[in-house]
């Protein structure tokens, strides 16, 4: 595959992590998960953007990533 084919293939996902039930990007959760993060960093900082942890794959990634195991999060009530 060429660079552009790989690039295009990477974009073809059924849904984004930000809307997936397996994805957790609560700042407080991340600060609790990553030991000593608050010492010189912050879960509430802009540089983190919307990154979070995929609880299915054990990976830390962008909320705009996605994969074949995407499972849409139901709408929150209220």
């Amino acid at each position, binding site marked *: 595959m060429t660079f552009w084919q790989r*690039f295009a*293939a990477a974009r073809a996902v059924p849904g984004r992590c930000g809307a*997936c039930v397996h994805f957790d990007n609560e700042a407080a959760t991340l600060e609790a998960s990553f030991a*000593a993060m608050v010492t010189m960093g912050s879960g509430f900082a*802009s540089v*983190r953007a919307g990154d979070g942890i995929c609880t299915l794959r*054990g990976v830390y990634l962008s909320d705009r990533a996605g994969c074949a195991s995407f499972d849409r999060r139901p709408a929150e009530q209220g």
Partner: protein
Amino acid sequence: MSSQTTAAPGSTAGLGWTELWRKEDWWAVWIGLATALIAYALFASGSSIAWLAVSPAKWSAFSQLVAHFQTNAIRYLAQFAILLGLFSIAASAIGYSVKQFVPGFVLVYVLSVIVFAAGAWDKALYYGIEPPLIALLGGLLIANLIGLPRWLDAGFRVEFYIKTGIVLLGATLPFTLIIWAGPVAIFQASIVSVVTFVTIFFTGRYLGLDRRLAAVLGAGGAVCGVSAAIAIAGAVRARKEYPPIAITLVVLWAIVMIFALPLVSRALSLPAGVGGAWIGTSEFADAAGFAAAQTYGGFAAAGTIAGTPDQAVWTYTLIKVVGRDVWIGVWALILSIIAVTRWEVAETGGGADIGEIWWRFPKFVVGFLLASLLITFATRNVSFADYNTVVRPGLVLPITTLRTWAFTFSFLSIGLTTRFRDFAPAGGKPFIAFTAGVVVNVVLGFVLSVLVFGDYWANLSR
């Protein structure tokens, strides 16, 4: 499965404009800019924010210090109440627990008063009492020997305080200086960042580390410490075990550098601006670097090195904030493209997006630049003499004092949140790879700051 979707809490997709009041970077901008605006408005109307920007004056006998606090008690109370109110409002909007933030902040403020008072003692320099180092050491001792309830950490927001202080710093840094010295700072910082990243990455790969871990470590050492490590971990889709490894190494080396860089710089009699530039090039995290730069500026204030305290902080800021921090989005974009096109095998997708550059942009820098532009524009027609006799005492120094409070909160918070027993074990290979980068970073930083651009940084002034 529902046909409706919700963006994950805190996602860039879900935040949109709400980022303006849900990220601590923007709250640092609002608080810093509002302070600068109010300070200027009072100054322009013939008054000053100096009444609120109180801090202990120089004292030689303890009775003088007691008298100072008795005389100014109402000013300290007002300052405390306003800072508590502002930070609590921000904490609530961002999502910290306000109930836990308030007692944590109260402790930070009280300890900061003690640090300020110790630094104002006329024998402080004789005994080597530098307020940033005292704040850091005091915090470390309390956290590791005495121990504090973990919920108090809600008030120890290292990043929030330092970002607020950086925006206030912008108000005292002439915009013309940023325009004039910014390109040199970017040039110097870029060389060191790229070389440091390449060193850590390829040393890590040579030692057999996963390329994502090598990239996370490389960014932590090359760009902006913990923030960069976290950002790049997300960009390259690192295993969730990788960021804590980088955090451990960044924090430990950053603490070593807080003490080492000012002391070595002083031993070499580097001028304040040169020492600040070296610290800006070779420190890892913003807060840690400000502790080192402010300490080095303190040596200038005492006359033990050439230059002024401002020069140490200004050159540090230009290289660290303007030269390194603002490029984190570009690093993230490049590495995410590499990750999805070269490293990714089909486990996850989603591509890379040019928007990374803005999404990950450290927004407090916007406030830093705006504050600088505002005050520079407002004082553009003031003569040098009037600046020193009117503007400086009535406008610049009070903002500097408030900035020093914010920085002290941050330095204390570094110590109070550094519990060595909590650190993730980094492992030998990551340690070697990161340390190789530290060595290259420090040596190359010295060569560029002292030997190549030494005269330039030594003579940087308003």
